[in-house]
């Protein structure tokens, strides 16, 4: 049994301690906004925040997440108000298929927390998620929009 704190709520899950956090979030807790893309921490579709830092949840075992604040895409909006990154994504029509965008948004939200006015170089260094639709141009533009919002 592991006690996880996800989006401010405690969840007791009965899983093997070596289960990837991604699958516990998706299957045991039932929050499916966090996506499976590769399982080897390459693509970033499974990005969540662990104590405010962007982490690829497919590469973290659940036992390492115990006692930490886990935030998923479902918990990014505070009190029904979209996070500024989510707003910029809507206003700038960033997602195409959208499958990678939960992870993309979580990675960007973590970047803006660290660097509220990121340069293009900061973006290049921090955002390494794969998007096969190729939304990068809009992602970059929307990051700057969110940073000035």
């Amino acid at each position: 049994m592991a006690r996880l704190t996800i989006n401010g709520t405690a969840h007791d899950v009965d899983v093997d301690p070596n289960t990837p956090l991604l699958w516990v979030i998706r299957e045991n807790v039932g929050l499916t906004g966090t996506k499976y893309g590769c399982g080897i921490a390459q693509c970033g579709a499974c990005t969540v925040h662990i104590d405010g830092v962007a982490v690829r949840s497919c590469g973290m075992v659940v036992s390492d997440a115990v006692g930490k604040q886990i935030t998923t895409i479902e918990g990014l909006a505070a009190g029904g108000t979209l996070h500024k990154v989510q707003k910029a994504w809507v206003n700038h029509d960033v997602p195409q298929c959208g499958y990678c965008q939960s992870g993309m948004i979580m990675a960007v939200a973590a970047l803006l927390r660290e660097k509220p006015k990121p340069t293009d170089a900061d973006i290049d260094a921090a955002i390494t998620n794969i998007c096969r639709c190729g939304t990068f141009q809009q992602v970059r533009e929307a990051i700057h929009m969110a940073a000035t919002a």
Partner: protein
Amino acid sequence: MNYVPTLNRRSFVIGTAAIGGGLALGLEIPLGGPTVVRAADGSPEINAWVVIRPDDTVVIRVVRTEMGQGTLTGLAQLVAEELECDWSKITTEYPTPGQSVARKRVWGDFSTGGSRGIRMSHEYVRKGGAAARMMLMQAAANEWKVPVGELTVANSVITHKASGRNTTFGKVAEAAAKLEPPKDVALKDPKDWKVIGKPLLRLDTPDKVTGKLVYGTDLKLPGMLNAAIRDCPVQGGKIKSFDAAKVSGMPGVKKVVQVGDSGVAVVADTWWHAKTAVDALPIVWDEGESTKVSSATIADWLKAGLDADQAFVGNENGDAKAAIAAAAKKIEAVYAYPYQNHATMEPMNATARWTADKCEVWVPTQNGEAAFAATLAASGLPADKCDVYKTYVSGGGFGRRGAFHDYVTQAILIAKQMPGTPVKLLWSREEDMTHGRYHPVMQCKLTGAFDKDNNLTGLHIRLSGQSILAYIFPQNLQNGKDPLTFQGLMPQGQEHAFGYTVANLMIDHSMRNPHVLPGFWRGVNINQNAIFLECFMDELAHSVGQDPLEFRRKLMSKHPRNLGVLNAVAEKAGWGKPAPQGVYRGLEQMMAFNSYVAACAEVSVNGDKIKVHRIVAATDPGYAVNPSQIERQVAGSFVYGLSALFYQECTVKDGRIEQENFDTYNSMRINEMPKVESIIMPTGGSVWGGVGEPTICVAAPAVMNAYFAATGKRIRSFPLKNHNIQMA
């Protein structure tokens, strides 16, 4: 127009029956009295495309699949333009293939590939919107007992100015639904469009930013179990045996089942449990004869085709052979293009529930009807006992989810072994990478002939490699020839026509079909054909000391739309003017899917690193329904095309694909993204072009031609990683 309305008493003819170009369809409902077809919530259908709810919500039916390309929004714009409805009150709905079959395919083709979504259905969906508007207005006219010609309509409000009355679509929908559909439906002149051509925001964004959107991978049904599968790693191979007892006691495992003759799946409470168990499952394969095949044997076979006597002729005029024999100067080059996987972000998946009386499938698919056909075949049940529910959005498609529904077949074969229990089958990334329907392999020998005055007198393009149709739709071969192989090289008048005039031309194809299954892939054959042709045009130009733009222009006087996009990118990019220090330019133009596209790339080269700084890209699709979405498709297509150019190859060893995940099959990231400047220059006409695919092919040749300008080196086999070149 002032037709006399009559109520249907014996039959209700679906609105598009009278109006849908090419859709001679009707639905007979054997009931007395007025009959209205109703949506699931009871709201009346005005016709198959439009449902109006009492609260004025406009439900637009869409059967093409949204997978990121924006077709959902674009098709809704087409209907809304003619319907004159309030855009803020629009929602969309996917009819199921089962409903379509029951209604004699009233919605037409579901297939969403070949950049067809908008270009092949624009007319009948606009007519659907127009017919619904006419019926709604007629219903208002009947209520007010005034001629319909005195009414005006805008934003879902119908007004009779003379009497100062107005009403809304929601209030007259019930009456409108009972009217006979109009027989003559006129469409607006494009100059009067107010919704088409506007850069409207997509309809499907909000739930994508909150994690609420349910993709196929996210589906939950009561009592549902999860399946992970291993299919034979050598395509065409079979299962010899597996030892279910070794894993049946593992956590969560419910059942181990064989799937067809080539796969085995573990069904468990969670997918993680299923995947863990299937990874541990001992399986013995009968891999068959194809284990002798490798990338090297395939390459050798294709190479032999470059000079083979027998070849299918795709395009010819004059006598290329004689022109080459008589040439004052001959230029020759050989190019090669690899196997590539689609690598959609959402791996293949399908959820099935089967009983002896009913089979239902929930699936992200580019073609609901093809998924339905796979469902009928695998379930053993008739059409009226099956249905397929498409997920709202597919997590990418790029061709993988169109013609093949192997994952649907597998899901049903698993579900049949657990009747009544819904089973969600999800492929691991590794399963997805190694069981693709790959971008076909192709080699190409190009030979150009010049006379003594350096005029291009002849060109022979010999393709050697794989045909997609031969595997998928052999009935579409033309006396053995696969016309799609010649995308971008076809004769004039076709939707992928060759964009130059060469006095003596021969373009032919030696077909060589290895066991590795090919498939449609964003752009497919334009990708390699654009590299072959447009890099070689650059080679030809340089071989006679001519500017690549001027060299092309001389061959394009009879191709004004090709020339139009090429000139547009040259001008905007500043071709002929100095580039920034260390930056070099390259050009490309092509026609595909009835759209004309061109690019000018700017690159710099530092050792083994190429930085693509900027790509100016022009598209003439005839009509631009949503310029904002077109811009996004253009920029996105370059990510797909440049990832392929720099990084992507599926190699074959012992008959199997070697790359299993993104660590060996890379995809470019944001730091590698060039600045993309789109020029959208629709020139109208009677033919509409596609958008999702055409521009994918322009990035790679433009970059390679710029690389030559920078280095004087030609690279003719791909991806560039094989030459130790990286993207900076």
